[in-house]
Every structure is written in C-alpha cells, then in structure tokens.
C-alpha cells in the first residue's frame, strides 16, 4: 500500500478536519494569488497603456512627473531636430490647457448641472482638458466615431472629444462648442473660441470622469491667447523598429543633453519604484502573511492529527513499516491538503481579484483602462512554489515527531493511557 493512499485514507477518515483545512488554504491561497497578481499588475497594465499610445520615448524639460514640470521651450524647433534623427520615426508635441465649455451650437451659456458647486466659482462639470497636438503625426488616441483632426487647418478649429464628454453634452461629429481657456498666465477672462467636433476618440489615460478634448497646437495657443509662445508640455517620440526605444533615447540625449528623456521602460520603472510602491509593498507584506498563515494552519492540523495517531504509527513501525514510509505519508497529507486548497484558491482568487480591482479602480483620476490585478503565468508559478514551500515547512515538525517516535515507549504509553 503506498504512502499516498495511506495519506489519503488518513485525511478522509477525518473529513471535517480535511475539508476545513482545504477551505482555509483556499481562502488564504486566494488572497496570496491576488497579491501575486497585484505585485506586478499595475506595472503590466501601465506598460500596456503606454504601448497603446503608440509612442515609446518621452522628452520633458525636467524629471518631474509628466505635466507637472516646466514646459519645453522652442518646442517646434526642438521637435523638428529630434524628428530628423535617423533613430526617430515620428515626434508629437503635446500642449495641455485647461478650458471650460462656454456654450454649445448657436450660443447661450451651458447650464450649470446639479454637480456644480457654487463655492468653486466655476461649474466643474464644464471643465475640460484640452490637448493640443500636431495632426500630421499619428495621434495617441483612437477614433471611435467620426474622423480624426484634419491635416489642413479648418475654419472653425476641429476637435476630437472623449466619449464621456460626448455623452454628457450630446456631442457628435458636426457639433459646435465654444471653449474659454483657464490659463494661469491670464488673470482676466479670455474670450471664448469656437470649435467643431469632428470625431469622438478614446484617450488611453482618461479616467471614467475625464473630459478630454484634442485639437491642434495652434488652437491650444488660441485658447490661452499665447499662440505665439512655442512651449510644449512634452514631446512623444516613436522610435524606428531598428533603433528601438533605447537607441532613440540615447540619440536624443546626445542631441539635447539638458532635457529629460525617458523611454516607456524608464517610466514604468520610475512609477514602479515611486507611485506604485505602496501596492508593491502591500502585496509583498500580505503575500508573506498569507504564506505564513497557510503554513501555520497545515502545521497545526497535521501536528494534532499525528499526535492523535501516535499509537497507530508506533504499531505500524513495530510491524515493520519503514520510518521513511511513515514520514512520506505525513508529507503526502500536507501536499494533498495544500494542493487541493491551492487549486481551489485559483478560481476563488480570480473572482476576488475582480472585486478588489473594481474597488481600487474607483480611485479618482485613474485611467479607466488601468488595472491593478493583471494575470500573468508567473503568478501561478509563484503561487504553486510558495504553497509548496508552505506544505513542506508545515509537514516538517509532524514528520519529525514521526521520525523520532520511540516505538516501545509509545506502545507502552498507549496501553497505560
């Protein structure tokens, strides 16, 4: 009779205990699995978002996070110089302005909705983020309805709006909307500028409440009355397949040593180290706690189980079963409990991750497409490995009890007790 079968029979002999052990492992195994998903989830998701934008290098004036630092001076000339590098396929200038919707269609002020707060001074629901970009370069957004910004200048500035804005204000291709810039360098109210919506697009970094609009670089300048000021928040660069992002970044650094050049990988690394560090820390801490908890649960279950069967074990040893055979039986018991629980933990963990992901994604300002829990095969491998370690560690003490069990003394004790 194999140790495996003996172990199985020992477990099913106490079904309540075995089931509870498996359920306990499943519950904490699910949490372990989720923490493994969380440990790199943000990094993977963020990386995917960056890739989706279609550009793999970013040029900024300083190492401050994007859109928080100083602007790039002489942005057009700079973009031109970078675009001429053999390692570079395309360069996109980004100018970001804040604006508010002044009116729609034929005129009239857009009504304040229930979400407006008078104490804020301006209706929040009418605020938009205006991204000025060069329409001749392939954009970072994806058109879902209508058309993209035209290459040639149009009479009424063309706009692409995000679906949230389109839904909220019933905008569609052809709609007219007037925007008034909210610019730091202009303490007085700026005159509104009229635009025509040409398309509806999804912007990769939009949150669920974002109200994003894209227009031309020139129109971004018109909004704030600084059309002549050639400054951009950022340059997005697409490298040639041959050079790749590192090659393009190195070439740009050589050309413009004072600027801050980051590849997508650099950005991911920085966000992983700084902005995402809390989630990495908590995933590490909770993963450690769950593995320890699992170890504790199985160790206690097995130790008590072995202690209750000392007489039987001593009798088996007296009959001639080898020590290694009996020890193997204990190890198999641990493996079966943890294995069954660990397997059950995977679908449980997957369901749990959906719930936890939904909670975290409700954080204000996060890109709607960003996920915290992202599946990768590595998570399953780690999950199995960690539970295996827990199973072995948990069986260590009960195996030791069996290994050093004094047969005669135990038999004697069993008779007396």
């Amino acid at each position: 009779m194999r140790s495996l079968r003996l172990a199985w029979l020992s477990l099913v002999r106490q079904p309540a205990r075995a089931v509870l052990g498996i359920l306990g492992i499943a519950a904490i195994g699910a949490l372990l699995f989720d923490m493994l998903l969380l440990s790199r989830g943000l990094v993977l998701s963020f990386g995917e978002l960056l890739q989706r934008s279609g550009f793999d290098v970013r040029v900024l004036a300083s190492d401050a996070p994007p859109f928080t630092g100083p602007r790039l001076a002489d942005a057009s000339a700079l973009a031109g110089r970078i675009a001429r590098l053999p390692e570079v396929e395309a360069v996109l200038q980004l100018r970001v302005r804040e604006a508010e919707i002044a009116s729609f269609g034929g005129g009239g002020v857009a009504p304040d909705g229930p979400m407006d707060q008078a104490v804020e001074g301006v209706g929040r629901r009418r605020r938009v983020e205006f991204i000025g970009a060069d329409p001749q370069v392939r954009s970072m957004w994806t058109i879902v309805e209508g058309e993209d910004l035209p290459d040639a200048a149009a009479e009424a500035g063309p706009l692409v709006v995000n679906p949230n804005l389109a839904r909220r204000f019933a905008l569609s291709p052809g709609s007219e909307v007037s925007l008034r810039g909210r610019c730091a360098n202009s303490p007085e109210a700026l005159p509104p500028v009229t635009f025509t919506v040409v398309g509806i697009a999804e912007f990769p970094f939009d949150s669920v409440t974002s109200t994003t609009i894209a227009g031309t670089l020139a129109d971004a300048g018109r909004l704030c009355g600084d059309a002549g000021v050639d400054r951009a928040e950022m340059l997005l660069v697409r490298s040639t397949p041959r050079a790749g992002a590192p090659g393009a970044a190195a070439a740009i650094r050589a050309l413009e040593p004072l600027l801050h050049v980051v590849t997508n990988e650099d950005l991911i690394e920085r966000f992983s180290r700084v902005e995402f560090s809390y989630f990495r820390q908590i995933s590490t801490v909770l993963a450690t706690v769950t593995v320890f908890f699992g170890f504790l649960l199985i160790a206690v279950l097995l130790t008590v189980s072995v202690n209750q069967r000392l007489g039987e074990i001593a009798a088996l040893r007296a009959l001639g079963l080898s020590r290694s055979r009996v020890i193997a039986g204990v190890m198999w018991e641990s493996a079966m409990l943890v294995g069954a629980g660990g397997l059950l933990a995977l679908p449980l963990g997957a369901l749990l991750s959906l719930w936890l992901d939904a909670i975290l994604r409700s954080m204000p300002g996060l890109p709607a497409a960003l996920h915290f829990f992202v599946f990768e095969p590595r998570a399953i491998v780690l999950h199995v490995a960690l539970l295996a370690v827990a199973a072995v560690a948990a069986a260590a003490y009960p195996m030791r009890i069996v290994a050093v069990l004094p047969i005669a003394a135990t038999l004697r004790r069993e008779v007396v007790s």
Partner: protein
Amino acid sequence: MNHLRRSLLGAVTLLAAASAFNSPKPDDVPGVLISRQLLESRGLRIGDRVRLAREATGEGARTFRIEGTYEPTPDPMRFAQPRLEARLHLPDLLALTADPSDPAAGESVTSINVALKDPSDAARFALDAAARLPGTVARPTRAPDERTGTFVVLERFHLAIAVVTIVGSAVFLLALMVMLIDERRGTVGTLRLIGFTRGRILMQVLAEGAVIAVAGAVFGILFALASQDAFNRIFQWRYDTTLIFLRVTPRVIWQSLLLALPLGIAASLVASWTLLRRQLLTLVRR
C-alpha cells in the same frame, strides 16, 4: 503656479552646490530653507550658498544662502516621492519665477491660506469669499476633494483584505476547534453517560470558548500594539518620512474585539455541536 514651483524644486537639484564662486556680500544674499531630505541627498550644510533657477538650463539663476532645514509635513499622497523642497520668502520666489512680460506676475500667487478665528465657520466664509471675489476658488480645507476620495478607496480596499483574512481565520479557527473538541470525545461521552445533558456540556464549552476567545483577542491586540511601532519604523526608514502608516486606535481595538469574540465563541459552539449531536455510544466506543 504649481508647475513653476515644481520646476524650481527640480532646478535646485541641478544647481545646488557648495559655493566657491564670486557671490554677493553675505548680507545681500537672501536666505532659503531646504528640506532635510534635500540637505542630506546633496550633502549640503547650513550656511552653504546655492543657486536656484526656474529653468532646467539654469537661465535666470539667483544665489541663496541656506539658513536652515525643515522636516516637510508628511503627505500621504506623496510618501513615496523624495521630498526635495525649498522654502523661499514670497518676494524672492516671485522675483525668481515671475514672467517679466506679465506686469501682474509680481502680484500672483498660487493660493492664499486663511486661518479663521472660528474654524467651524469655514464653509460659510468660503461661500462668502467666492461671491465677493469672482474668478477665485475658495474651499474649506476639510471639504472632500480628490485626495479624500483616494483614501476612501484605499480604506475600502483594506477592509476588503480584512474581510478575506477574517474568512480564512474563521476557517482556521473552526478547524482548530473541531480538532480540540474531538480530542475530548471520550470525556464528553463519559459525561453524557453519567447523565449530563447536551445543554449543560454546551454551556461549559461556551464558557471555555469565551475565555479562549477573549485571551486570544487580547493577545492579538497586544501583538498589534507591539508591532505597529516596528512597521512604522520600517516604512518610515524605507520612505524617509515621518508619516505614521499604522495606528491601532481604540476604534480598531473595539472592532477587533467585537469580531474576535463572537467568532471564537461561534467556532467552539459549532465544533461542540457536531460532537454532541452524535450518538452517545459512538462517543465512547474506540
């Protein structure tokens, strides 16, 4: 102005250096306070002279003397970011960052903080200020904003994790109680043979379960209190901040007790009942 201030902070990292160049006389050099983290990371000392500029190129840099250092107020939204900051007198900051083509630049600030005689009047004051000063935004500091939303979400996340942990712990507890009660099978059988009723034995088990639950909960709370310092120290060291990450408050203690006690008692009751409902002879038979 936020981006200007940040650019200033960024420029500090480029240009901060020990002074060894022609500089204005000491009494002409304005003072600046820099954060402890900046002081340590750049190897600066109080009394050193640094040049700060708005632009990364260093254009328009001005010389300042480090008058002192300060510990930045911990910001939970930025705890992972190194606090490399400087504080200038407002006229110095404006002189450094103002756009010379803008005649109003010297009079522009990012925000004005107002301390009221009666803080409970903040909401009404903000409304009043907004009405009297068109184009401005007035907001009580306790008003909910995006940062509050972030922490509300994090709190829900932590609660979700706690719920899962409690479920796992409950199963663990039940498994333990089943084993412990099962070990007493013979005793329970003998008591039943003697004539003890199920209810009588259950009450005894209940009392034991309550004692174990209380002892366990107290131990857990003491352990949490002892370890919160260790956790805080580790994270404060890791992120070079004075932020408190973990705090066991009376509310947390009460919540733990209110969860642990019923859970412990319920586990012992369930485990006991599975034993007591069995036939008497199966309890005493080996």
